[in-house]
């Protein structure tokens, strides 16, 4: 059945000239010479420096805020508190927006350690910091709760009096929502199983850990109009959110996205931007706010931590008869943990007749979670993939064979309901099985683990403009901030369509006044959706160039076609004309009808899921409990790798973030609910010496929803690592690891407990 999409040009097999090669990215020189301008790298004349006062308490009523002494300090030009953020009508009607407002500036209560309480703007950073110390806040400290299981207990401190799914039976509760996904009869499925494995798991909250702290520069004039420069994954989202929160007209704020020093989902929300705009408005001067690392950890979104339970049953031949999961995700102080997506993604790699996943969205006294690469999926996959391997082991079946037997395939029903189109999971499993890695011997104290992963991938609102220049080059303006080299892919796709050189396209990220609305760069969508729009814009340029050629030759437009980067006469009545190249027509644009440009605006859909299989060898040091990743291979379906080096980069980067989450990274709280490891020294992300090379295999199963077959690749790569590593570690340690991070103290405890249990059994 042909796929019905809004794009008449579905996937078409073709030979590529530029796509699939590895050219240097257009922003490359700037990034290796220090010239690229990131969020904190800009200034404005007369600029003030902003700083934010944050709650030292996990949960406290804010009885009063006295800013008089701060305001009196020389050099202080503005102070803002909750009183400067009235709740406008648009916010009142939208709980999501209200939560964002309250997260940016606390109101009645401080809901977590690090919650913003007040902010100042002063002539220099030192004065701003001094002024914060002069603000007097009177708190009434309240009971707090950090853990998702404890937050669900009947006597837990309650964060919001107006929140609670009916779990709380009419009373407010910390359970903001419940979701259930699945089909078939799980109980009947388990009754038919020869073997059932069930286990409970815990995962820590990991931070996205982008190296660039949030930074912005707001400049609002006395007429209420202004500009905002910031590092974000979506400057249109920033514009719309900030203006709604502050009661401004959307057109009165122009937002420019700086180069962005990593995001991984964490920069799909606003934190300091509304505060900087409010300070600038109040002071009548530009205000720059740059978070420090401590603030990034305390006040921006880590991902949810989770408490999970998974049960899977299978026949002796390995056929799964039922799968069940209970997922409890705490997403910090506001509703909206990604548990819905966790529940949908949990079993998405498997073709199951009887499946259920139930999820609870829980609030705790932690910072509001933000999206993190395939939000919600990695934790669920960790639990599911652990149980799948344990079940395969129990049945004496190779873990890849077990997965192949039960894998989701083309046109099979997904665990979350819909029927898949063409998907590449089986291809990744087969490729993984054939790797030299999977067939290599292991050393002592080593174990090998495999796991699969899935992510939906999204399209979204997208607008691009392609302007042809007089010398036959073209400027491509896209609205999706480039977080990993996507501009190189855009240039490749534009060059591919136009038949011109890759180097003749220069791609930039347009500001909010120059392009139609663009959704944030999320859901692995930039190369898919902006690429799709780029291809369509380029096709429009070609049509327009053909029309110019027709005019020049005095023949009908339909007697001209585009071939090999030039307009050529086509058909019996076209006559004999020498081809007009892209450059020829570009040069004559002014004289033949004016500037030539192409543009395209869509809500792109049909991104097509990407599946992966990861293989990892881990070694355990039985003395210290330290885990060493010895070898790692990522096999993932990219549909079509537009720029294979950056596709590999996404595979490797996601895998290593997963390694960090699996082995070391977690938020650690004191008994007072204060974050104890708010810095890179104590929140340890993987460093170069922790890791081996990350081997990659790119599988290309074309996405029927894209003319080149492209699928998003950015997120799937973080889904399998935790499960794969847990399987490798469990094999090496000879005991099942069920809590991540599998840090040395936790592993040592597990080893000791296992030894005492073994001794007791003797």
């Amino acid at each position: 059945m042909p796929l019905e999409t809004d794009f008449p040009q579905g996937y078409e097999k073709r030979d590529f000239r530029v796509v699939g090669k590895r050219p240097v990215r257009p922003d490359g020189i700037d990034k290796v010479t220090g010239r690229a301008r990131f969020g904190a790298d800009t200034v404005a004349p007369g600029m003030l420096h902003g700083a934010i006062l944050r709650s030292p308490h996990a949960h406290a009523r804010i009885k009063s805020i006295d800013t008089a002494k701060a305001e009196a300090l020389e050099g202080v030009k503005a102070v803002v508190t909750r009183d400067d953020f009235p709740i406008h009508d648009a916010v009142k009607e939208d709980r999501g927006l209200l939560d964002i407002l309250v997260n940016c500036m606390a109101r009645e209560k401080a809901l977590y350690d690090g919650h913003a309480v007040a902010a100042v703007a002063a002539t220099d950073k030192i004065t701003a910091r001094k002024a914060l110390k002069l603000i007097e806040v009177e708190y009434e400290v309240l009971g707090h709760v950090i853990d998702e299981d404890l937050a669900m207990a009947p006597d837990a401190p309650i964060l919001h009096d107006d929140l609670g799914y009916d779990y709380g039976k009419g009373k407010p509760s910390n359970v903001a929502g419940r979701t259930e996904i699945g089909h078939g009869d799980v109980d009947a499925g388990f009754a038919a199983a020869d073997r059932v494995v069930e286990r409970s798991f815990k995962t820590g909250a990991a931070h996205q850990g982008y190296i660039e702290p949030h930074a912005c520069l707001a400049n609002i004039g006395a007429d209420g109009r202004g500009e905002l420069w910031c590092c974000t994954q979506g400057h249109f989202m920033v514009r719309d959110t900030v203006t709604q929160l502050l009661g401004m007209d959307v057109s009165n704020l122009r937002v420019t996205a700086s180069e962005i020093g990593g995001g991984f989902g964490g920069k799909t929300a606003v934190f300091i931007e509304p505060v900087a705009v409010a300070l600038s408005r109040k002071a009548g001067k530009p205000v720059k706010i740059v978070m420090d690392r401590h603030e990034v950890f305390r006040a921006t979104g880590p991902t949810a931590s989770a408490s999970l339970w998974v049960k899977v049953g299978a026949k002796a031949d390995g056929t799964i008869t039922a799968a069940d999961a209970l997922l409890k995700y705490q997403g910090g102080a506001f509703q909206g943990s990604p548990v819905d997506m966790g529940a949908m993604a949990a079993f998405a790699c498997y073709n199951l007749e009887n499946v259920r996943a139930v999820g609870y969205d829980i609030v705790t006294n932690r910072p509001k979670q933000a999206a993190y690469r395939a939000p919600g999926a990695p934790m669920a996959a960790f639990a599911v993939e652990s149980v799948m391997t344990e079940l395969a082991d129990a049945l004496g079946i190779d873990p890849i064979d077990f997965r192949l037997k039960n894998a989701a395939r083309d046109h099979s029903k997904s665990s979350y309901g819909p029927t898949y189109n063409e998907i590449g999971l089986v291809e990744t499993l087969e490729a993984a099985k054939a790797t030299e890695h999977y067939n290599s011997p292991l050393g002592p104290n080593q174990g090998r683990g495999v796991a699969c992963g899935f992510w939906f991938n999204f399209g979204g609102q997208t607008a691009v403009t392609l302007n042809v220049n007089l010398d036959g080059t073209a400027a491509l303006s896209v609205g999706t901030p480039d977080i990993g080299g996507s501009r190189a892919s855009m240039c490749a796709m534009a060059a591919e369509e136009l038949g011109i050189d890759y180097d003749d396209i220069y791609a930039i990220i347009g500001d909010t006044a120059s392009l139609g609305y663009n959704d944030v760069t999320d859901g692995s969508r930039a190369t898919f959706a902006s690429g799709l729009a780029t291809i369509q814009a380029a096709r429009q340029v070609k049509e327009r160039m053909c029309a110019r050629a027709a005019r020049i030759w005095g023949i009908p437009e339909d007697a001209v076609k585009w071939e090999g980067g030039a307009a050529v006469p086509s058909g019996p009545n076209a006559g004999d004309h020498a081809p007009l190249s892209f450059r020829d027509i570009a040069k004559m644009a002014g004289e033949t009808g004016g500037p030539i440009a192409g543009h395209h605006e869509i809500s792109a859909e049909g991104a097509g899921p990407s599946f992966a299989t990861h293989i990892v060898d881990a070694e355990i040091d039985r003395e210290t409990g330290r885990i060493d990743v010895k070898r790692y291979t990522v096999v993932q379906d990219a549909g079509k790798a537009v720029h294979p080096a950056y596709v590999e980069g996404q595979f490797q980067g996601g895998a290593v973030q997963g390694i960090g989450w699996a082995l070391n990274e977690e938020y650690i709280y004191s008994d007072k609910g204060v974050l104890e490891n708010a810095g890179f020294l104590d929140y340890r992300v993987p460093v170069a010496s922790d890791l081996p090379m990350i081997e990659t295999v790119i599988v290309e199963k074309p996405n029927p929803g894209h003319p080149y077959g492209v699928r998003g690749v950015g997120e799937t790569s973080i889904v399998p690592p935790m499960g794969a590593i847990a399987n490798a570690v469990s094999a090496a340690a000879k005991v099942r690891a069920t809590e991540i991070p599998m840090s040395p103290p936790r592993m040592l405890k597990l080893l000791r407990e296992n030894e005492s249990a073994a001794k007791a059994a003797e």
Partner: protein
Amino acid sequence: MVQVTLWGSLRDYTDGRNEVEVAGDNIYQILQNLGQAEPRLKPILEKGVTVSLDGQIYRQNLMQTVRPDSEVFILPKMAGG
């Protein structure tokens, strides 16, 4: 009429049914008519849902054509990283 399948927890709002037949030629009409047929679903639909149509995820494009034999799933609102 098109058969629409609801994600599990929506059963709480439809007296236990997770399949509903509604009229409509595109996603927008389907959602409108679903809200009329099942008024308790209306606030959830208005807050935002994801629609899967013949296996493709639609987060926004409500004008997408739906045929009587289309496979339509209503799923929770999704976002990526």
